[in-house]
């Protein structure tokens, strides 16, 4: 009797085979002494186990066992220490974040629009410098990290050199 046949015999005992197949297997087992003996052994083991758990009892009194469960339930339902926020703070919390953000925007606005502020002064100086020199053309290539400046008129020192040359001439 091969292993698959043994497993089928067990499945037959457990009522896990379709009726037709179970009937055939039962007939085979009746003719085969080895199969019949195995089936008997499996049946005996099942019978020995029946009712085994019925006599097992919890070794603790009802009151004591329940007191442990009750304590554990209450512990699991109690809020974790420190997690409870003061009621006033809890009420105001939804408004605090937008209020803080508005305050930051207001402060930034005041700092940037003040004429005497260093930021404002720096920005003004930059634009004056740029506007003051209309004859200069600047090209910046950020990817190459290069800045080129073209001057469309002779620089002061070039005029001076011309003058000197003229003097020589």
């Amino acid at each position, binding site marked *: 009797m091969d*292993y698959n046949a*043994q*497993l089928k015999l*067990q*499945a037959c005992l*457990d009522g*896990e085979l379709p009726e037709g197949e179970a009937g055939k297997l039962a007939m085979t087992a009746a003719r085969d002494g*080895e199969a019949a*003996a*195995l089936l*008997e*052994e*499996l049946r*005996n*083991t*099942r*019978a*020995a*186990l*029946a009712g*085994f*758990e*019925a*006599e*097992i*009892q*919890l*070794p*603790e009194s*009802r009151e004591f*066992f*329940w007191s*442990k*469960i*009750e304590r*554990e*339930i209450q512990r*699991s339902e109690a809020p974790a220490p420190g997690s409870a926020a003061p009621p006033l703070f809890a009420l105001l919390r939804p408004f605090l974040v937008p209020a803080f953000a508005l305050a930051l925007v207001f402060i930034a606005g005041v700092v940037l629009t003040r004429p005497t502020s260093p930021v404002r002064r720096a920005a003004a100086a930059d634009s004056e410098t740029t506007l003051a020199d209309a004859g200069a053309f600047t090209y910046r290539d950020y990817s190459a990290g290069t800045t080129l400046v073209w001057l469309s008129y002779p620089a002061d020192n070039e005029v001076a050199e011309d003058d000197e040359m003229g003097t020589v001439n």
Partner: protein
Amino acid sequence: MTVKDHSSADDQTLVRAAQRGDMAAFEELVARHRDKIFARAYSMMRNEEEAVDLSQEAWVKGWQRLRQFQGESGFGTWMTRIVINLCLDQLRKQKRQRTESIEAMDEESGGVERHMPVVTVNPTAGLERAELRQRIDRALGQLSYEHRTVLVLHEFEEMEYKQIAKTMGCSIGTVMSRLFYARRKLAALLADLKKQDSV
């Protein structure tokens, strides 16, 4: 509702009361089913202390998930499934912490159960109930947790192969093979115990 009222109420009524937050109703349910839940944990764990702890944990989980209980099965069956899952988790943790048992290695190495001689004489015939229980207890303790669990789920929980496979996360073929091994090994162990007694 008084405690006396609870003791005469059926499980369904108690469950509904407990779902509304009635702890006294839940206490009555615990009292009714605590032995069965403990017995299932003990059959799987083979350790009284662990079985007490796990059955207590199952009851706490039962209370926390009580709203999910819709009554498709009996309350006792529902609670039994909770304790079985807790025991399986615990057994898997324990298995990771120690080497595999000899029984499991036997199964992996080609199925020794195929070559075991058939136990022709019923080894439990004529035994007193207490003696039988003691012998089965010892024999169950010698099985690996996988074999014992399949046996417990099939024989005590009356689960079908398909349900056992789902619960244990394995194939139906593995369930059949483990159950076959567990039964044959148990028969051999009980026969050995009988022989030892007669010497």
